[in-house]
């Protein structure tokens, strides 16, 4: 036990002396939360719009003003002919153009249905769809105001109930994702690199000839990372609860147990990578490509898993992050009982056991 503590202390010193890495690791969760909270958003705001108004009469001017007033659009250009529109798109100065037919007001009064064309830059299809939806909404609404429209006959009122997240905050979705991601970075990537570094520098040889059991060496190596991950998790909880207003609806106890299980699984992943990789570069590439990228893209943190092709859904099933995020969402955001996440718990524990068994086997081989 004494050996374990002195080894763990040595590892802590290694980490604390490296102030840069230390700072980044502690700040990273906060930065990620801010990025996902405020920067990674698909909402439409102040999109640059160009107008080709062939009528320039009272109603068409009012329409343009209505668009410009809305928070979604800002009219930045006004054109005289179609070729100017094309060029503005190619220079990526505008994302949407609106062409108003000539004699707009006159045709409106004579019920000749004047035409308005909305050209959206569909390079980004989803954004283009929202642009068309919002702008045609604004245009028809302002026309309704001009005309005081009539009502439909029979109607169905659709009552929409937004479960768990009535304000549609994106933070409810990404907070579990950021946790899953940060732990993979700290536990899998940092741990594997630091173990491989000892080997690359030759100091591992020295450790292995000492009377300390290899298992103690490995355990003391991962201990500091275990604590750093817990600090990271607590930081995320604090920022998400107090700054972003994300509730913890279920039992905090089980949320925390789940985090510990996931940290242990990730640490065993790190140990496994370190037994495979011969150099730090290899450890890094393996953990970045096989662990980090899928944990971001295939875990349901940014993109919906069930909309992906089957093969990617299959790959997602073997990512611990996917199971962790799904369980934490249920426990924390949906606030369901722990019996609904038994599956996730079992899968994570099973993954952990398999990983530990494989790395123990690999580790023994390496000693001979």
């Amino acid at each position, binding site marked *: 036990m004494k050996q374990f503590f002195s080894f763990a202390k040595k590892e802590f010193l290694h980490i604390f002396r*490296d102030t*840069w*890495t230390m700072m980044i690791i502690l700040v990273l969760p906060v930065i990620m939360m801010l*990025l*996902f909270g405020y920067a*990674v958003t*698909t909402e*439409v*705001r*102040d999109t640059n719009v160009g107008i080709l108004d062939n009528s320039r009469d009272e109603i068409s001017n009012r329409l343009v003003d209505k668009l410009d007033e809305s928070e979604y659009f800002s009219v930045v250009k006004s054109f005289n002919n179609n070729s100017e529109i094309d060029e503005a*798109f*190619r*220079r990526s100065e505008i*994302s949407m153009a609106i062409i108003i037919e000539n004699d707009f007001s006159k045709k*409106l009064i004579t*019920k000749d*249905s*004047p*035409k308005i*064309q*909305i*050209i*959206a*830059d*569909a390079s*980004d*299809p*989803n*954004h*283009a769809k929202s642009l*068309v939806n919002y702008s045609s909404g604004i245009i028809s609404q302002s026309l309704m105001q001009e005309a005081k429209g009539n009502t*439909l*006959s*029979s*109607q169905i*009122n659709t009552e*929409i109930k937004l479960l*768990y*997240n009535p304000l549609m905050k*994106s933070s*409810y*979705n990404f907070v579990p994702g950021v946790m899953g991601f940060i732990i993979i970075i700290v536990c899998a990537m*940092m741990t594997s*690199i630091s173990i491989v570094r000892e080997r*690359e520098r030759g100091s591992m040889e020295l450790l292995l000839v000492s009377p300390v059991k290899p298992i103690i060496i490995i355990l003391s190596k991962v201990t500091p990372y275990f604590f750093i991950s817990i600090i990271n998790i607590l930081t995320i909880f604090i920022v998400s609860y107090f700054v972003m207003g994300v509730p913890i609806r279920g039992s905090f106890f089980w949320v925390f147990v789940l985090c510990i299980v996931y940290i242990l699984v990730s640490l065993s992943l790190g140990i496994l990578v370190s037994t495979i990789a011969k150099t*730090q*570069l*290899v450890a*890094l590439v393996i953990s970045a490509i096989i662990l980090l990228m899928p944990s971001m*893209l*295939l875990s349901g943190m*940014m*993109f919906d898993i*069930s*909309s992906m*092709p089957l093969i990617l859904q299959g790959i997602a099933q073997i990512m611990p992050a996917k199971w962790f995020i799904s369980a934490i*969402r249920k426990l924390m955001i*949906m606030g*369901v009982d722990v019996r*609904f996440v038994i599956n996730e718990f079992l899968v994570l524990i099973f993954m952990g056991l398999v990983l530990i068994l494989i790395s123990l086997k690999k580790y023994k081989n390496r000693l001979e």
Partner: protein
Amino acid sequence: MLGYLIEKEFKQIKRDWILPKLIFIFPFIALILLPYAANFDIKDIRVVVVDNDKSSQSNLILNKFRANTSLNINYIEDTYSEAMELIHEDRADMIINIPLGFEKDYIVDKNAKILIAVNTVNGMKGSISAMYAQNIISDFSIEKNSSLQVINSPKMEILPLYAFNKTLNYKFFMVPALMVMILALICGFLPAFNIVGEKEKGNMEQINVTPITKPVFILSKLIPYWIIGAIVMSIGFLVAWLFYGIKPEGSIFTVYIFSFIFTLAISGFGLVLSNYAQTYQQAVFMMFFFIMIMILMSGLYTPFTSMPPWAQTIGSFSPLKYFIDIMRCVYLKGSKFTELLPQLYSLLGFVIVTNTWAILSYRKKN
């Protein structure tokens, strides 16, 4: 002198176990898999239906739901609480609850209700699912009403046109930009490890006592990544063309010129970090920290203009933002070189700043 140094770099890369694989195989695999994952299209929404009315009208409306390809009715339950159970277990995303007396309310009272409950933990998926459901219901009632309705008010025609991507294919949007991301990952991370690697192995000491000047040393580190960048980019072009059938509308020459400039900028940045870092771990985390911010704020996944103004200011310090814009412009809109001059100047600015910084921050003495 420079020639020998570059030869040395290439030998080191060739002898490494993982680097050649990373350069040739990673772009290939990443470009085949990523566009399928990085997709904001929402499909296969799992629906559970609670039909308390079981009338001909409720059946008609459910048939509308069945006909929609984005929604799948997976379960039919008798009570709302049973349906909720499925939501808790994450086996369904949405509940459609038709109340008792729906038909009567609809036909006689002309005012019926339907409840749609959506799991909105993922806000975007939730709102899109709700929108789909609402559209289906309002289509249904418009169809029913169209025969009765008399239109008296003035109307106009709104004609939407989706320019540059008529089929609204998300891959056309993502593939050119993902090529930039892959290029940034390879040509950003590898230089960041390079000088640190020399430091950790002790080679740096030996190089420092030779008469190699600072600019020559940095150039010898930069040029190999320039060539690697061209290889990665060419693999990207081929995969985009052969696998997705995406070809640039504009000239491929324009794309190549910009990719050369971009590679210089991002590799220069990697070298700067490498000069400051003492260990691999430091280099990895510094690079990771910056590149993650640069990628997420570049408009790769979400529109740049959707970010709040302060975030747009930070984002404009990301060279990825400009190159992604350029790639999308040339690939989808066929922009000409002369139409992209503002982006060109910004990228050139990055090249000059990062590489001068790389030369200045390389110190032969401790």
